[in-house]
């Protein structure tokens, strides 16, 4: 499957989607002007991936910051993982946050509350 490799900018996160390598990562800050232009290719990639997924999908989020428009798109990404779980596959979100960032921790807990995907909350030492 095609590999997505996007470098981080001051308004968009680093993204790596590599099924062969078992790497699924979004990390950094997200406040683009046009969130759909940035996230649509990622969501489309996942739509294809979930047709023939790996045995286990560990999706890592390691966000420093995201605006509310991005929060909606991040949910769309997580909902693709929910499809995986619903179709009997093994998927987990590893939600990494700076240990002193209670807002980011709470954001992860809120996603965990509204989707049927297991979350692992991972504080990162500052």
């Amino acid at each position, binding site marked *: 499957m095609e590999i997505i490799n996007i470098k981080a900018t001051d308004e968009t996160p680093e993204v790596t989607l590599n099924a062969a390598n078992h790497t699924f990562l979004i990390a950094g800050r997200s*406040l683009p002007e046009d969130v*759909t232009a940035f996230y649509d290719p990622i969501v489309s990639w996942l739509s294809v991936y979930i047709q023939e997924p790996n045995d286990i999908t560990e999706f890592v989020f390691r966000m420093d910051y995201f605006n*509310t*428009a991005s*929060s*909606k798109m991040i949910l769309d990404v997580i909902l693709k993982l929910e499809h995986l779980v619903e179709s009997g596959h093994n998927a987990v979100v590893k939600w990494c946050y700076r240990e002193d960032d209670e*807002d980011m921790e709470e954001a992860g807990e*809120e996603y965990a509350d509204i989707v049927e995907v297991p979350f692992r909350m991972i504080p990162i030492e500052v």
Partner: protein
Amino acid sequence: MEENQIDPKFTKFAYEFHTTMVDRKLMLAYEGEINQQLTKTFASMAKNTLEKDEEDNSVRRKVFHVMVECLQNIGKHTDDPDSGTGISPGSGIFLVGKTKDHYAITTGNIVSKTRIHEIRTLLTGINKLDPDDLKTLYKKQLRESRLSEKGGAGLGFIDIAKKTGQKIGFDFIEVNEKVDFFLLKIRIKRN
């Protein structure tokens, strides 16, 4: 024109502007177009200033977040004073103030009268909610909302109220029969 090349009225204005900024404890005042570049510049500027002032990490993050949401709001949701229809990028005023207890972020922009009822209802409703209700509403809206054409998630005000734990200040002043000037003031508690 005086021999010093400055109209005395302008000097008076500049001095009054200076004293107003000082009296009202404003550290930044801007009027004009708000685009993405400016949003990033202001937000980073604030982040650096707060870092230099050794402000708490959590306060820094909240100020950054409120600034981004407010500036992107103006950029996306400002209307033209003559026609009352949307303009892009939007423009308006943007103020950042700092007192002993709070940072205050204020925005002011032109909005069509057709949108006022909706904004007022939304903000009045949010201001009535306690933190638990805000959390519930945020999750509901996150799950159920669709991104608008302008890329808004309808989450901005709810999220601001939730993260700051403060009521949102707002007001409208009539500009003409089509539009009002919409003022929004958000406070972030300093620790």
